């Protein structure tokens, strides 16, 4: 078990490192001069040179990378070209909103999907199974941002129950929660469709295995067989997908924040791109990628918790 974990942890750190190099390299290759975009096209060449030196852009690339990466480790991502404030601060302000969106959507997905998938598998071939399959097939094809617009149409425009967008700030907790309901549901519905399908097919796969027959022959009630024996054995593919889905949800927030005008990391990313605020974009892309890599690492840890065969105590 320890060897598996050490290998995975080493892989995790190496991937993060590689990701940071790639992000830095891509950003360095992009066209555009930060000094120029800060000072404007009327700036004198001397002023531009002075600004580049102030930004540390005149150092060779490896040195710039080292400075940036070491800073990032300490939470210092440099100073935003556009806002003239530390990037770390910009991110910290917006992280809670994006994280609430992502975690909320993941939680709703985890509440909805496995139950639906298991119910469908238990009624394999029946009308309930069919309904879940058709709904999820359609759900997978619906873009999350259109789902958002439809939800706004129904709950904001028609019924007037919930706001159509905007965020009042965390100092009004109730209003803040109301503002998050529709975006969370929009993100969760699409992912639930995917997860319900995966759960169903993983469960059907397990239900054909011999030990399920043993459990039946032992007189265990159907429900107990499904939840105590089938579901845990189906968890490996399910957890794998959940890890990928968390990544998809985190990315999805970029679009969803735009639909609902929520001031989160996604909005910051789009703004920074529009402002050619490369240093902020760089930090954000690194952060998003780090979240994805971390999610995958957590999935690896979950495998160990789920399956005793992975812990290598065979002997």
């Amino acid at each position, binding site marked *: 078990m320890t060897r598996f974990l050490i290998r995975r942890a080493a892989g995790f750190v190496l991937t993060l490192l590689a990701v940071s190099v790639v992000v830095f390299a891509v950003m360095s290759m992009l066209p555009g001069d930060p000094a120029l975009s800060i000072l404007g096209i009327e700036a004198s060449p001397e002023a531009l040179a002075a600004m580049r030196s102030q930004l540390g852009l005149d150092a060779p690339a490896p040195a710039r990378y080292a400075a940036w990466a070491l800073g990032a480790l300490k939470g210092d991502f440099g100073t935003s070209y556009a806002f003239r404030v530390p990037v770390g601060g910009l991110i910290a302000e917006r992280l809670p909103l994006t994280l609430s969106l992502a975690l909320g959507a993941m939680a709703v997905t985890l509440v909805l999907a496995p139950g639906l998938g298991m119910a469908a598998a238990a009624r394999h071939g029946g009308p309930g199974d069919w309904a879940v399959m058709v709904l999820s097939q359609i759900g997978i094809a619906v873009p999350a941002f259109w789902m958002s617009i439809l939800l706004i149409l129904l709950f904001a425009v028609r019924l007037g129950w919930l706001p159509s967008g905007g965020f009042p700030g965390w100092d009004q907790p109730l209003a803040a929660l109301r503002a998050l309901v529709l975006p969370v549901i929009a993100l969760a519905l699409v992912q639930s469709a995917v997860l319900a399908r995966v759960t169903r097919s993983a469960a059907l796969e397990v239900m054909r*295995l*011999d*030990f399920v*027959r*043993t*459990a*039946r*022959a*032992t*007189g*265990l*009630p*159907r429900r*107990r067989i499904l939840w105590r*024996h089938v579901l*845990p*054995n189906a968890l490996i593919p399910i957890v794998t997908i959940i890890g990928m889905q968390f990544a998809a949800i985190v990315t999805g927030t970029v679009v969803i924040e735009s639909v609902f005008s929520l001031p989160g990391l996604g909005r910051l990313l789009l703004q920074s791109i529009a402002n050619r605020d490369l240093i902020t974009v760089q930090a954000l892309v690194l952060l998003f990628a780090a979240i994805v890599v971390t999610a995958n690492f957590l999935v690896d840890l979950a495998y160990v918790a*789920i*399956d*005793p*065969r992975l812990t290598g*105590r*065979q002997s």
Partner: protein
Amino acid sequence: MIRVEGLSAALPQGQALRDVSLSVARGERLGLVGESGSGKSMLGLALMGMVPDAAQLSGRIALDGQDMTGATEAAWQPLRARKVAMIFQEPMTALDPLVRIGETVMEPLILHLKMRRRDARARALDLLAETGLTEPEAKMRQYPHQLSGGQRQRVLIALALACDPGVLIADEPTTALDAQIALRITDLLVRLSRDRGMALIFISHDLAAVARATERLAVMYGGDLVETGATAEVLANPRHPYTQGLIAARPRPDPAMIRKRLPVIPGTVPTLGDLPRGCRFAGRCAAELPRCAGTRPAPWPTASGQAACHLLEPAP
């Protein structure tokens, strides 16, 4: 203990069981032999109420005096493990890989017998010890993948015995095991049956194992019960041509046989879809009569049982 009358099972691809009647007395050990596709496993599953959804059953099944004809899943479920239990051929995959051995054996004790965890643990330990599992205490904490095939089969037997069933159905319990281990498991099943007064239905295609384990024998072919009788009697003096072929085709360590070709039953087992209408063995039988393919033979009495063959029909 078990009484089956006129049991038939129709699958979409054909008839898996035809008009099978059989009974097993309390504590009796019955061998059920036949090739794959003979319906012996289907009969075993029918006695557990576990035939595939696609199978249409007709006929009567009575368990311990209780009529289970047409019983629903909900009616069967409480009887499984408590009245009739079953172990299967493949011990390697028959245990949930994510559940410790102890928990597996304790599950029916807690669920069915409403034992408290501590009592269930002690009982599970006794059961594992009773099946001859070495170091049962340590094995309780282990996972199935840490056990050998023979050890797993012992765990499965302990699991089947948990609620003290009146009948144990063992479907090819030794086929997947080494010869040595297979012998020991066979002997274990016989001992448990004797000690507990538990009826044993031993399903196998291995005549040596059946001879060792059982008192009475039922031979199946193509969904029909072709011959029954005392095990020793049937093996020594088979009356049905199929039983005769089966016994002749058995590999034996006989020096005289080494140079000769092993006698085989000509032809192959027909698929369910194209079984003959009359005697299922028609077409492969060396002593076939003109009426065999079209008319189903009635069971005629033999020395210790019955055999369904036109050859045994008393001359008119």
